[in-house]
């Protein structure tokens, strides 16, 4: 039976948009909330939460993000790439996957930032591809931000651009040849000359006259300013359908509109929707398929249903948000273990969205992951391994390198 990768979403106080509005029972407070209970965005909570996930054997963590305040959820939040970089040198085996929205951030900057994260983490960087509207982005950026089909097309163009920029340095471009005085071999550095689709003005402030939602074309010459990272390219993680399947390394899947999002071990018997969406993502070309699972767990103080009701009453999750688009589990830790064991062989991994970090992540690392390890159901990431190594993904060949 193949192993199941466990990933965890780690933004803010929890993945439920109401996480920051409910009181955390004092008895369930954990190491990372003790010093940082009143500080949702500071370095200590971040450092401790990631350390707890790494110690428990989590394959990678994701960091949700938004340039502008999210319509539901925490008002305060620190840039995701910055958070991932901060924990990079104080971790050794967990993958670090920040969300970056391709319609919002300059492709050249995204490529540089994630390549730098890959170097700083010694090959544990990923890119969680942002999707959907970023409310207020146009006004914040003073340029049109693509939406709908335009955004889908632009996302594909950005992913193609990043792949090219990450390949713009061959692995052995730095030669340090003292005989000739050359630091690099310029034959092993490549322009990318990518031009996106789209039409209309690109120059600011001319873009002020372009209606919002319409993509403005971009072009990038390259090469990147950052040498190729340990993984060649950071691991690309995207919701199925956001990118062409062949452009992703890990496709995140969830229920369709007609599927029952609530999962149980029994519901996975036979032809479940999980098997169906996983097969579809694989058919589209994704090497790995990971199920998004929104989790509310029983605690000593309260049962999961009561907690879920309290959270939903605090803030109803918005349609289209990660929480609302995920499969759901609420119940006991042992029930979750059983569910995850049943998911082995159906999907390659599960990204847990813990409703409240202080509560649900705590139960996850204390009760759920140890049980999975005992069952030899989860891989053990090794210090020094890259995220690609841990996931069993090959290091991508360089599109510009000539044959050996």
């Amino acid at each position, binding site marked *: 039976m193949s192993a199941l990768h466990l990933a965890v979403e780690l933004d803010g106080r929890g993945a439920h948009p109401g996480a920051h509005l409910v009181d955390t029972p004092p008895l369930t407070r954990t190491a990372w909330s003790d010093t940082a209970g009143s500080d949702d*965005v*500071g*370095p200590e909570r*971040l450092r401790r939460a990631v350390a707890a996930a790494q110690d428990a054997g989590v394959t990678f963590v994701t960091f949700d993000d938004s*340039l*502008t*305040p999210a319509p539901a959820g925490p*008002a*305060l*939040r*620190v*840039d995701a790439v*910055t*958070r991932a*970089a*901060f*924990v*990079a*040198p104080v971790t050794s085996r967990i993958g670090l996957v920040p969300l970056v929205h391709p319609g*919002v*951030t*300059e492709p*050249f900057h995204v490529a*540089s*930032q994630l*390549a*730098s*994260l890959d*170097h*700083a*983490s010694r090959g544990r960087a990923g890119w969680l591809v942002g999707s959907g509207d970023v409310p*207020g982005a146009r*006004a*914040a*950026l*003073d*340029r049109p931000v693509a939406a709908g089909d335009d955004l889908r097309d632009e996302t594909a163009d950005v992913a193609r651009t990043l792949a090219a920029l990450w390949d713009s340095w061959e692995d052995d471009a*730095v030669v*340090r040849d*003292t005989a*000739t*005085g*050359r*630091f*690099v*071999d*310029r034959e092993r*550095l490549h322009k990318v000359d990518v031009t996106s689709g789209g039409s209309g003005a*690109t*120059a*600011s*402030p001319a873009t*002020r006259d372009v209606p919002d939602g319409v993509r403005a074309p*971009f*072009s*990038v*010459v390259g090469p990147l*300013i*950052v*040498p190729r990272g340990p993984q060649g390219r950071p691991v690309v993680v995207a919701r199925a359908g956001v990118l062409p399947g062949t452009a992703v390394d890990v496709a995140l899947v969830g229920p369709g509109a007609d599927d029952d999002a609530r999962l149980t071990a029994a519901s996975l018997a036979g032809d479940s929707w999980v098997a169906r969406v996983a097969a579809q993502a694989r058919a589209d070309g994704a090497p790995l398929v990971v199920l998004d699972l929104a989790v509310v767990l029983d605690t000593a103080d309260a049962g999961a249903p009561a907690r879920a009701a309290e959270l939903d009453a605090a803030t109803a999750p918005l349609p289209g948000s990660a929480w609302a688009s995920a499969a759901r589990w609420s119940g006991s830790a042992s029930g979750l273990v059983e569910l995850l064991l049943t998911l082995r062989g159906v999907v390659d991994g599960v990204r847990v969205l813990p409703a409240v970090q202080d509560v649900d992540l705590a139960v996850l690392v204390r009760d759920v992951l140890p049980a999975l390890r005992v069952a030899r159901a989860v891989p053990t990431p090794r210090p020094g391994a890259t995220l690609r190594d841990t996931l069993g993904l090959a290091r991508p060949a360089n599109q510009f390198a000539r044959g050996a």
Partner: protein
Amino acid sequence: MSTATGPSSADYPRPHAHVHLGVFFQGVNHTTIWSDPASGSQIDFETFREVAQTAERGLFDAFFLGEGLRLREQNGLLHDLDVVGRPDAITQLSALAAVTRRIGLVATQNVTYNDPADLARRLASLDVLSGGRGAWNIVTTDNSWTGANFRRGGWLDHELRYVRAAEFVEAAQALWDAFDDEGAPVEVRYAGRTVELVATPTVPRSAQGHPVLFQAGDSPAGRDFAASHAEVIFSAHGTDHADALAFAHDVRRRTVAAGRPEDDVKILPGTQIILGATPDEAREKARWVKEQQVTPATALSLIGQVWGEDLSHLDPDGPLPEHDPVVKAIGETRGTPRPGRDAVAVARAWRERATEQGFSIRELVLDQERQRGFVGTPSSVADELAHWVRSGASDGFNLTPWVVPGGLDDVVDRLVPELQERGAYRTEYTGTTLREHLGLRAPVPHRRTLVTADA
């Protein structure tokens, strides 16, 4: 060079001034010797960690990273003789924030190829996660050659670069300050000629209010920009005391003219320090360093820059070319600063000098490379640095080690104790934020109320 041993400290305008030190991890320049066996990787995180931690052990104020958004070219070819490639500054500094406790972290970021809402947010993120140690070195690259890597291309007129910089900084400050008394974010509206935004911040104020602003412009417009907006000037005046003093006086005059107290802007010239146990040993080391910096290939590249053509086929131990340069002005090298002097005049002067002295190409280039910074024993250099800050020629120095990661070791181990003995250097960090290290005032709160549309 030194006059410091003469006057007692009471004769100085600032007798109790401390030397503030920063370290500039430079790369991408022939100052950095990559050929030495002691030279580490220019991209592995460990090299950066070691330099930052050494600087912190030496109680430095700041660790400083540069930026270049396109790889340098000369005569249409990628420049391959110096270090090429470096990490994104904010990403790398955020990682360094986790393995350091006190040192300031300065990211160079330009205002043309960034969006104010995005960059202000990333800088604030670094500032929050580092506990108030973030800083931004504001640069104004605007050429379309660099712009070819960005959505908007080379969209900004050169004349507008400081207008853009000022508006960008004002918008960023407005975002950094846009919180009500309960700490809840409020919406910022900014409308200028080159920056227009409506945005609500998500990153709270940091322990130091907001990132410290550095700037390095040396032109009159650049100095005025610094006097109006910057809190630290990273100047090029780090070798000659009289030159540095004149620069400092000029900056203070402009700072007062901009309506600020004259000590509102700190001056940290970029410089280099070469130490030896004896003056002779230091001079010998300086000669060796320069020879490592100006390799035969680099000598040919530097004259190629003056002549405006690829001269790499010439013999570096042979004579200069006899023909005149094919370009009028020096500085066509892409990605390096500003076009400058008359190429033909420089070439003729160089030929005359070479003929007079019997210099080969490389000897001529070595002769032309001015010795930067300070060369001497730890004691003599400590005297000089104390003299500089006490006389008001600078507030300290931003040091560029010629080799990383070990190039800072002797400064920390041998020079810093000498400065401490002179009462001219801290013996421990007394604050936790960069603003406190530098002795800067708190940023004006709620600056957004001061921001008005520029029409």
